[in-house]
């Protein structure tokens, strides 16, 4: 609070001064009234895409913007790529959250400027959908992605959020299921109803993200989120509201649920597969299940933002990361789910020659259903539902009223 402003407001003012002030504000308002432009784009024609790529050349450098802990610290896969291709790289860990990243990038892209990144990684969800709808993602040239075609698992090719991988290719995936503290919950829960069980009153964690929590509410009422209707959302909302009002939920978490569950602050919580696996390796008392009613699978995707300076180099790097050896290097560090199934064979081979701690870690990875989900798990997994902007407002209204009461 500016004391001068306050003083100004407490001293009597002549009418003329008031008018002057009013005039000033009116001028500023007129300046600002143009608002935020709408820029919805139709899908580009295949010819235009072809023309675009025909004009692009390899520039010998690439800038990769990614999330923290998504690349081994020695950056070995990138170094190997650089040696093999002669392309120098810059690697930046600048993305912490989809909404925030989109919020910061949108004005830049809307102004027709470049973000300065050639590859960015975003989770399938509302913001990625916005990027595509607004024409902020460059359509990919699959003629230049042979490794992707040959090595990516089928489950990672046909995804509803980007049919035919027109704009994105997966970087890594993860499962949202139930993480539980094995000291406090002796028997692994099998049903999602455990999260609603009054016996765990005050010991349950839920995610605060509207899509994540909405999905779990829908699993609990026996609805597949991908095929859900507004009536289902409201019904799921009622159940989640009751769960909160009965005091079962201790907290709605953005990211930090994993410490809470490993310390025993909460005993059961919605959780992500890779987080739990890493804690298990560290010997912490955390378990993970995909409930029988269903869990969600999400994917972090690489895409080329509009205005990227080096699109060809970006495609080359994307494709390189689909070589099984490179994908295995990434997987050993990231410990989520690789889109390249052949990674399992490579890690198994490596296991034969590894020793000591390395061997234990590799063995745990190869054996873990968190890294290589079983077919039974895959059968239970569902994807996020796409939402139109009108639906999104209703959806957010229902579920944010629960997480932000």
């Amino acid at each position: 609070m500016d004391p001068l402003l306050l003083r100004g407001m407490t001293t009597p003012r002549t009418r003329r001064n008031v008018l002057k002030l009013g005039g000033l504000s009116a001028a500023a308002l007129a300046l600002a009234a143009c608002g935020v432009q709408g820029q919805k784009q139709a899908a580009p024609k295949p010819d235009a895409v072809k023309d675009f790529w025909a004009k692009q050349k390899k520039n010998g450098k690439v800038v990769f913007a990614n999330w923290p802990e998504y690349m081994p610290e020695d950056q070995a896969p990138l170094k190997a790529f650089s040696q093999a291709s002669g392309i120098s790289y810059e690697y930046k860990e600048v993305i912490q959250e989809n909404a925030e990243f989109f919020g910061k990038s949108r004005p830049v892209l809307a102004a027709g400027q470049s973000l300065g990144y050639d590859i960015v990684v975003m989770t399938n969800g509302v913001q990625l959908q916005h990027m595509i709808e607004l024409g902020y993602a460059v359509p990919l040239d699959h003629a230049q992605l042979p490794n992707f075609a040959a090595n990516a698992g089928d489950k990672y090719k046909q995804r509803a959020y980007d049919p035919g991988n027109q704009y994105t290719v997966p970087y890594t995936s993860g499962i949202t299921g139930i993480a539980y503290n094995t000291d406090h919950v002796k028997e692994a829960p099998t049903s999602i109803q455990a999260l609603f069980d009054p016996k765990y009153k005050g010991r349950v964690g839920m995610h605060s993200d509207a899509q994540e929590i909405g999905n779990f509410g829908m699993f609990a009422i026996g609805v597949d989120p991908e095929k859900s209707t507004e009536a289902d959302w409201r019904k799921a909302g009622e159940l989640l509201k009751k769960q909160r009002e009965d005091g079962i939920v201790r907290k709605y978490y953005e990211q930090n649920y994993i410490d809470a569950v490993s310390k025993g602050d909460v005993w059961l919580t919605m959780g992500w597969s890779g987080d739990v696996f890493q804690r298990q390796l560290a010997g912490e008392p955390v378990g993970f299940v995909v409930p029988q009613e269903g869990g969600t699978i999400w994917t972090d995707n690489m895409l080329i933002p509009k205005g990227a300076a080096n699109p060809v180099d970006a495609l080359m790097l994307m494709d390189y990361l689909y070589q099984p050896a490179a994908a295995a290097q990434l997987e050993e560090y990231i410990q989520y789910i690789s889109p390249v199934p052949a990674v399992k064979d490579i890690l198994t081979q490596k296991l034969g020659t590894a020793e000591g701690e390395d061997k234990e870690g590799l063995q745990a990875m190869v054996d873990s259903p968190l890294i290589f989900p079983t077919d039974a798990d895959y059968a239970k997994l569902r994807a996020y539902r796409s939402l139109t902007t009108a639906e999104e407002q209703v959806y957010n209204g229902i579920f944010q009223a629960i997480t932000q009461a």
Partner: protein
Amino acid sequence: MRSRLTPYLLALPSWIWLGAFLVVPLAAMASVSTQSGNVIDGFVQTFSFGNYADAISQYSPQLLRSLWYGGAATLAMVLIGYPVAYWIAFRGGNRKATYLFLLLLPFFVSFVLRTISWNFMLSGDGILLGPLKDWGLLPSDFQITATAFAVISGLTYNWLPFMILPIYVSLERVDPRVMEAAHDLYASRTTVFRKIVLPLSLPGVFAGVLMTFVPAVADPINAAVLGGTNNTMIGNIISTLYLTNANYPAAAALSFSLMAVLLVGIFVYARALGTENVLEAAAR
């Protein structure tokens, strides 16, 4: 002529700065707050003042809660901060500078990190409560985090120095001779404090309240880190509306509503304490 213009020219950069980075953004936000649309199709100016009614009716619980948390934290800060400032000002001797430095020392660590470390310390099975529970001194379901108490405590802790410093400055300025004169006239220590020291330090309290109440009410961090399922504050709502939902009009309308409520509140408070002196002190 030149000499008369000089002060204005010197002040010009500040005016341009304020104009470009305060007035224009505020006006733009005021405009956005009455627009309608969505991020895909764009937002258009429709002068829909209904945005305000919608935002306030939908989020009034959080708005009221924020005022109550901010108010409680501010009161706690006065109660804790005044004695500290008094002690440093009158009993600090020649170590005053050291004490003031110690007061500011926590600020060398980021705000968010300090709050998270509180969470770490106070969590159910954390380093403080864990052992107490193991020894049977506390029931096993006792908790501090995820309560209103935790959020208010966090707010109090995070802004306490901004309350202490202005009070300290005003106490420092109290002329010891005035107090001595009161003693000579047979005033008891309580009377001296009540009639001399307290009134003279009120401008400091006022400035402290201004500097702490406003940010405390609007803060999203403490509620997010230390709060539970029923402790969401208005700052959290605004940031979700703006960043997650890209619902700029609602976020802007809510921000302006909050600003209006705070301005009115402070206005009333200023009148109650007597503006003249107080504002001068705050401006110093």
